[in-house]
């Protein structure tokens, strides 16, 4: 192993020669090196949900994706690490896989630690349940959320069962969103099936303050407000016992 690491290090020599050289020596002598220690662990962790939410099928490489298998273990780690007291979820997503999106949303909703989400840019489609899954949600003034029906892609069998299945999938999304936000099922469905708002689809594009007005999101704000709220929630949790909002 020593020789291997030594070889790997050599092309790098001109970049950082003296410290790298001593590092190699240290490894040769002691068989280990000091990994830089971050003096203080942050008590707030940040999860970014970007691009497409990827589920069972790997999307072509030109897609920017947030992968289920990366996010779920991170959430488990956040839940079980006693040094982490809160989670900030930053969303800028176009949606993606229903199952993966709902899985992440459920994980966030069941997290025992305070969590705050902030929608920047966009939190579309399956991004909506993720945004509302946290204890408190923010949306930037210019950010938007597109609420539209789930469409069938791929193999479509033209039998009523197909549409029933799709309807059930959609109900899962609607139920989750209405359970974890202040919007009613009726209003949400109205937004979802509204005509004339989107160019290629039925549905509604809800901008910043409107999302708050309709009850999907709790407040309009940016990173400052989100961090303040998260610290408040952490403080409430520290004092103990008191039930979190929502």
């Amino acid at each position, binding site marked *: 192993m020593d020789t291997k690491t030594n070889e790997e290090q050599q092309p790098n020599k001109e970049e950082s020669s003296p410290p790298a050289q001593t590092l190699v020596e240290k490894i040769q002598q002691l068989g280990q090196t000091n990994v830089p220690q971050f003096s203080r662990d942050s008590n707030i*962790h940040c999860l970014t949900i970007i691009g497409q939410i990827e589920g069972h099928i790997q999307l072509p490489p030109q897609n920017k994706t947030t992968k289920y298998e990366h996010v779920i273990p991170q959430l488990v780690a956040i839940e079980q690490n006693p040094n982490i007291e809160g989670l900030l979820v930053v969303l800028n997503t176009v949606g993606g896989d229903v199952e993966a999106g709902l899985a992440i949303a459920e994980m966030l909703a069941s997290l025992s630690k305070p969590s705050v989400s902030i929608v920047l840019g966009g939190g579309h489609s399956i991004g909506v349940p993720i945004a509302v899954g946290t204890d408190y949600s923010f949306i930037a003034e210019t950010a938007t959320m597109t609420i539209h029906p789930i469409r069938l892609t791929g193999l479509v069998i033209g039998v009523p069962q197909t549409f029933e299945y799709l309807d059930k999938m959609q109900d899962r999304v609607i139920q989750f969103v209405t359970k974890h936000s202040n919007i009613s099922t009726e209003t949400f469905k109205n937004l979802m099936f509204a005509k004339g708002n989107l160019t290629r689809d039925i549905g509604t594009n809800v901008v910043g303050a409107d999302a708050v007005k309709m009850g999907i999101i709790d407040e309009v704000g940016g990173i400052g407000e989100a961090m303040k709220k998260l610290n408040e929630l952490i403080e409430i949790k520290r004092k103990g016992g008191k039930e979190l909002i929502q």
Partner: protein
Amino acid sequence: MILHTTLPRELIFQELDQSHEEKQMYLYHGIPIIAQPTEDNQLRISQVLSTNPNHFLHPHCIPGRTVSLFPSNLL
């Protein structure tokens, strides 16, 4: 798989001519990163995966930078 997204399907699944090089997850000083191996046995970081905000302040572990696999290329 059912996709619930605003992006049209043909945009997501478009065929690209150029082959994309394989990006993988690595640990760099304990920081999970997505990186692409370069010809000289180094890694070009394309994304820092960690949820720890302090990891984003690491002086070398920045997307776009090339770092040496050494000392921890363990996964």
